[in-house]
């Protein structure tokens, strides 16, 4: 770690083994100097300095404040940040932040660490105007303290406390919360324009509205059910809201539309919420809807496998999927069951059916189940004279422990 207070690092000159930035900064500067002789001398010195920099004790600081005093100051100010945050004193934290910016009794490293932790603490408070202003100012802060990052023998310097990034994060959190409050009020009033506002909102605001939906009552959400369903059919990106509404209201039809029409990410996340208890009598059909989308079909069939522990229809669907484009996922789901009745059905596929892809998927299911009965069936299959030579040769390696 190098405190860069007295000699701010220049672009890439801190990166060892890198390329562009070093040459751009150093050579560019030299070319602007008046004398070639001086240029060369400066360059040699610069090269030596770069090397020397790397050999400097890592605790070097340009600040003339004795270490003991620095530590005391740091601890006092850090403690104040903690106290103000726990007291939820946003105004006090704003004043504290303003003072920290001009605090002289700290090294740059300590100051930036304090600013970083104070901005982080601010994100958890309600942003009074002074605090928001102070944090907005920090989004332009250029951190100087760097950390040495050594991975696999390759050392780089990186910003240790990215205060601007922390400030941007705090603003996002606040903006998201503002949007949540707005949406909560709109839900309470049964406003009809909430969904339209969501569609044109920034990503942060959308997050806030989604949070409000999660906190809303089923009755409030049911009010928007039809609009969300129509929106999905029309290709509008309301999937996240629709998924929340469908889950909280138990709206099976809406969940089918979510799984069929929403973005891949929303549909995938929704699959993890489907089970027999939350969706009594509807879970199998919901998974089947999802299984028709290639990008989430595998996840849907594995979800169906969770139902198949007790649902015979689900097992049959999985068995029917063997040999199809999602047969491997169906096989994995059946293999996870590790159930003797399923193993017997898979044996029938092996010995009674001729479609090679289906047979391969049955083999995969048995292989993944890993039970002794499954292994016995695999061994028996490999030894059958009717088994194709390719398959017969592929099976034995699977039986090795």
């Amino acid at each position, binding site marked *: 770690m190098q405190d860069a207070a007295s000699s701010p690092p220049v672009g890439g000159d801190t990166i060892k083994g890198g390329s562009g930035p070093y040459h751009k900064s150093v050579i560019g500067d030299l070319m602007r100097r008046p004398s070639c002789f001086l240029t060369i001398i400066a360059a040699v010195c610069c090269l030596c300095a770069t090397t020397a920099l*790397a050999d400097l004790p890592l605790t070097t600081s340009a600040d003339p404040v004795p270490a003991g005093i620095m530590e005391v100051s740091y601890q006092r100010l850090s403690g104040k940040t903690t106290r103000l945050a726990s007291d939820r004193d946003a105004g006090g934290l704003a004043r504290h932040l303003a003072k920290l910016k001009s605090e002289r009794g700290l090294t740059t*490293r300590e100051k930036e660490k304090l600013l970083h932790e104070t901005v982080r603490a601010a994100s958890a408070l309600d942003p009074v105007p002074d605090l928001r202003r102070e944090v907005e100012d920090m989004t332009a802060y250029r951190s100087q303290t760097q950390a040495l990052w050594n991975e696999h023998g390759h050392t780089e310097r990186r910003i240790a406390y990215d205060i601007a990034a*922390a400030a941007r994060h705090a603003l996002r959190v606040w903006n998201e919360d503002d949007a949540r409050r707005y949406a909560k009020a709109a839900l309470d009033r049964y406003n009809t324009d909430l969904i339209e506002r969501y569609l044109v909102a920034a990503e942060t605001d959308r997050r806030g509205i989604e949070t409000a939906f999660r906190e809303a009552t089923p009755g409030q959400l049911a009010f928007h059910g039809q609009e969300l369903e129509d929106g999905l059919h029309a290709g509008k990106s309301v999937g996240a809201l629709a998924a929340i509404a469908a889950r909280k209201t138990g709206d099976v039809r809406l969940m089918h539309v979510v799984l069929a029409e929403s973005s891949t990410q929303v549909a995938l996340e929704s699959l993890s919420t489907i089970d027999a208890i939350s969706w009594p009598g509807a879970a199998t059909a919901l998974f089947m809807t999802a299984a028709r989308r290639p990008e989430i079909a595998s996840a849907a069939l594995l979800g169906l496998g969770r139902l198949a522990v007790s649902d015979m229809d689900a097992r049959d669907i999985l068995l029917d999927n063997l040999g199809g484009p999602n047969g491997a996922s169906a096989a994995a789901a059946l293999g996870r069951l590790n159930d003797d009745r399923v193993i017997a059905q898979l044996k029938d596929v092996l010995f009674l059916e001729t479609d090679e892809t289906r047979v391969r998927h049955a083999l995969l299911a048995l292989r993944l189940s890993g039970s002794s009965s499954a292994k016995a069936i695999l061994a028996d299959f490999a030894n059958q004279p009717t088994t194709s030579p390719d398959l017969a040769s592929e099976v034995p390696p699977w039986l090795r422990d």
Partner: protein
Amino acid sequence: MASRLRAVSLAIAAFLWAAPSYPACQFNSAGDISNPNDPSCRDVQLRYTRSDDSGNNIALGYDVPFPVESLTGVDGFRSYQSLFEQHQSLDAESSLVSSEIVGQTISGRDIWAYRVGDPDDDQPDGSPEGVALVNGTIHAREWQSPEVVTELFEQLTETATDGGFGQYLSDNLDVVIVPVLNVDGFLQTQRYPDRMTADEQQPRDGRMRRKNVRHPTTGTAIDEDIDQTEDNFFGVDLNRNNPDGFGQNGSSSSNPISLVYRAGAPQSEPEIQALLVAAELAPATRLRMYSDVHSFSQIFFTPLTGDAVRDRITRDLVTRMRRVSGGKYRYGPDSSSGIGLTSDYFARSLRIPSWTLETEPLRGGIDYGGTDHGHSGFVLPASEVARMRDEVAAMLLAGLYAQADKPRLIAIRVRDAATEEVRFEAEWQGTGSGRSLKVIANQALVPGGRYRLWLGFNKPMRWRDSRGEIANYPGQSVPAFAAIRLQFPALPVEHDVTISGDADAWRAQPGEDGFFRYRDDALITEFTVPASLPAEGPIAGVFSISARDMTDYGLDADPSSEVDWQGGRWTGYENTVGANSETGGTDCNFVAFVAADPGATPPAGDETCRIAASPPPVPPPPPGDPGTGGGGGGAIFWMLPPMILIALCRLRRKWRR
């Protein structure tokens, strides 16, 4: 260099040592936690969240990814079980995949390796196939790694019968893939996808476990309970447990609680022993590329061994691979004697191109609009996973293509464009050192005649985009058409004929004058022998053919000796003048003739291209014995910057004028 590396040690540890004291973990100058038994350090439980930065929560600024149950790739990270089932399904569904259990972890879990490629060990012409080894998930918390390696596995398998690029790789290269080497550690990270312990600056165990699960005292596995904190810091860094550079250069530790604890002896860990078994599946003597996939920082950490030729070939290969991502990935050469990485071992002991590939992000979650907190670079947002997977797989595929074999001409055919009659035809036959050029037809080309030239290569030479159009392989820049001339060495150079063509020349269909073995491994074009050519008697006409493959490697100018990787360099990969090379040259082996009389007999003598006949350039000095050179090299290093600057100054004066 070594002293500097010793001084800086891992990550930000030295900073923390110097930082003001505060509760929780303390760090010594080596970057190790100095109070591992202090409850205020080891018992601290940390949790990743999207936006909650309060208490011991660490806000990432985006949703914390949890493992997804899906065999096929999604925008997110798959669970270990799903990944394993996907690997097994690729094996079960394809006769071009075979699998082996290559060892067991400390906890006794199987470690699997998969060999992808046609079952034989030979290329279609009988030459022995090369092998590449791709290792994944040696560090448990680097979830990008198994996703990338699985994507590569999927693409190799799914394209193995595509008639083009994929089938070429399947027929000509064995790829051994170890998707998850550190199974125990990876499972531990997935058990606690948002939890870890200790300190935000050096989070340990749970989602941030890096090492395997070896207990240093008992030798057995530590417990899997993150709340039982006594053993959370234990484990061996498998990527410091290798012989080349073991314990050297300050980047590993003998302290069992260190993140980079190397264990007592190299290759002591069963996971590393399993990797060696995987390397022998090929076998290891056939290896010609090793990639160890990690995250993060977007760089190829590339061991340089001092063997100038091997190092140069490796650098050139990495350069081509980096182009695929538009230069987003960096080149990080390491000229030290190694630090015990697996890539050190393969670079130095097996003398093959070898690197540690750190995938994105460059800095951390901040690259995606998140925060800079708590090692967020190891927690890629789910929404970035599919794109990242595709980008890195494309880079690796470029490397595999380049290392499978070097391009060479296999056959030529010249037809009369009007009558379709074959006037000249020749091809290389046989294998290895027994390969020879067989001329099947050799009738005179007539001045003023129009001819159709067909050339067949040993590999697909051009890429097709998603619309089926000829395009550059992503990031590469190769001319659409080859540089071909019909030279008449007996005549002044102005009589030479330039044979042109465009991207449409590459053959996408089989059949007569179609592609040879793979889509786009052949081209066809037409040319005219000038009517003014002073060729009353027969004169030799040499086809001078310079073609670049998809990754911009030139032709093996002398296919009579097979190209192979031996002793840290290509052998049998000749340039235009017949010298062993690293980038190939111009093929001048096909010699037709021109005569006014169509029934004339070929002229006597061995003609060749003008360029090939010119005196060969002074060969570079032979490479030094690896590891023994270097004396005095430092002087050159120190002299270079002033020399460059003198040159720049002179340039500057010139500009001013």
